[in-house]
């Protein structure tokens, strides 16, 4: 059930991470992390607080430089994530990345122009429908609850039809219905060939969408699982209880 070595590998990967290490002064946030991700899959990255999940996603998104190791997106190795790769990534971090003084529509149009989205008016409406915020398009972001802001954040991530979604706890602040909507959205996205890398503390939510999993603890890969059954078995066997949603 458990891989003999904690290295997840696949054929024809969309992403290869090799020996990734990140140190902040004396503290090691990630140590020799290696894995690869196949297109159309969902990799769940789990682990306790401070395990290095967010650092890993930030490095993959290009927000932080690794201390050592290499990342290859779409078959090319990079030290700095280049413009053409950034155009193919949709990222959700702990922060909304929205301007609180602008309306939902203004924020989405802003990102549509940054990502050079064709027919931005049509696309903004489409993604607003996806996350059910059409009625809020002319509301200022500042006036929305955290859960509603998170839905707009998800709309922003889907806006430019990315090939890969990097989602750091995307279910933060979402109610049960919104979480269910997000799960369905991710399923549809994967069916169309999209790839998802996801961290979450709500393992049940992760179990519903993940095809692969990677467990980090203190910056190291502790175990990996390469199919949904293994993912479930590993998570339920863990000392940490599965957090009910």
């Amino acid at each position, binding site marked *: 059930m458990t891989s003999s070595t904690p290295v997840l590998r696949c054929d024809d990967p969309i992403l290869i991470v090799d020996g990734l290490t990140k140190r902040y002064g004396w503290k090691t946030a990630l140590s020799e992390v290696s894995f690869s991700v196949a297109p159309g899959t969902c990799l769940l990255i789990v682990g306790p607080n401070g395990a290095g999940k967010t650092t890993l996603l930030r490095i993959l998104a*290009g927000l932080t430089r690794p201390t050592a190791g290499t990342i290859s997106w779409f078959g090319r190795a990079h030290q700095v994530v280049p413009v053409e790769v950034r155009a193919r990534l949709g990222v959700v971090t702990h922060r*909304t*990345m*929205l301007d609180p003084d*602008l309306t939902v529509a203004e924020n989405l149009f802003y*990102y549509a122009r940054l990502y050079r989205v064709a027919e931005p008016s049509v696309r903004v409406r489409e993604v607003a429908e996806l996350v059910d915020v059409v009625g809020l398009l002319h509301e200022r972001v500042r006036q929305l609850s955290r859960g509603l802001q998170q839905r707009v954040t998800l709309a922003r991530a889907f806006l430019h039809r990315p090939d890969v979604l990097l989602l750091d706890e995307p279910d933060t602040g979402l109610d049960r219905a919104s979480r269910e909507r997000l799960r369905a959205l991710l399923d549809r996205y994967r069916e169309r060939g999209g790839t998802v890398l996801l961290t979450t503390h709500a393992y049940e939510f992760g179990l519903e969408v993940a095809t692969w999993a990677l467990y980090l603890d203190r910056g190291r890969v502790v175990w990996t699982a390469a199919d949904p059954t293994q993912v479930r078995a590993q998570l339920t066997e863990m000392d940490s209880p599965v957090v009910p949603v």
Partner: protein
Amino acid sequence: MWGQLLAILYRDLLSEWRAREVVIGMLVMALLTLLVFNFAFDLTGAQRAASGSGAFWVAVVFATLLGLGRMTARERQDGAWEGLVLAPVERSVIYVAKLLSMVLFVAIVDLVALVVLAALFDLPVFRPGVLVVLALGTVGLCALGTLFSVMTAQAKAREVLLPALLFPLAIPVVIGGVRAMMLELSGAGAEAAPWKSLLGGFAVLFAALSVLTFGVVVEE
């Protein structure tokens, strides 16, 4: 590229129009400084132009520092900066857009402060030469300030670090601005040419260096 640049610029201006937290703060700082100097200096005789131009540039530098700090804080507040850095936009485009936003904000402060300077110090400020000095000095100050505000944004003591880095390097702008403006205000505009060249050279040099190095600053 132009579409992305204009999108960033439009967002900065719209956001400021709604929040009114950068320019208002800068204006208050500039006006208070001019007012204090108005009471501190002897405004009779030949020293008026020197005192006026000195007071003006101190006001502009303080206001610019305040504006840069406020802009950076607002950008970082909800991760809007991360959103910008993650987008497929060349770093140089981000820099130029941020520089233009800052130049526009400082230009508003410049013009209002100039009117106040004229009223308080009784100086003939609305001369083409004065406006040229102002434009060159503002671009130079903002070129350097925009780079350093991004560089220090992640630091814990950024409020201290930004002025500590900016002031020493901005000395040529301050000296050049004060000298050129004083000459223009005292009717010796022809003698201000070397100082204007210094201001222009500084603006071009630091804008070019910042465009080239901004990517490294953002990535690190």
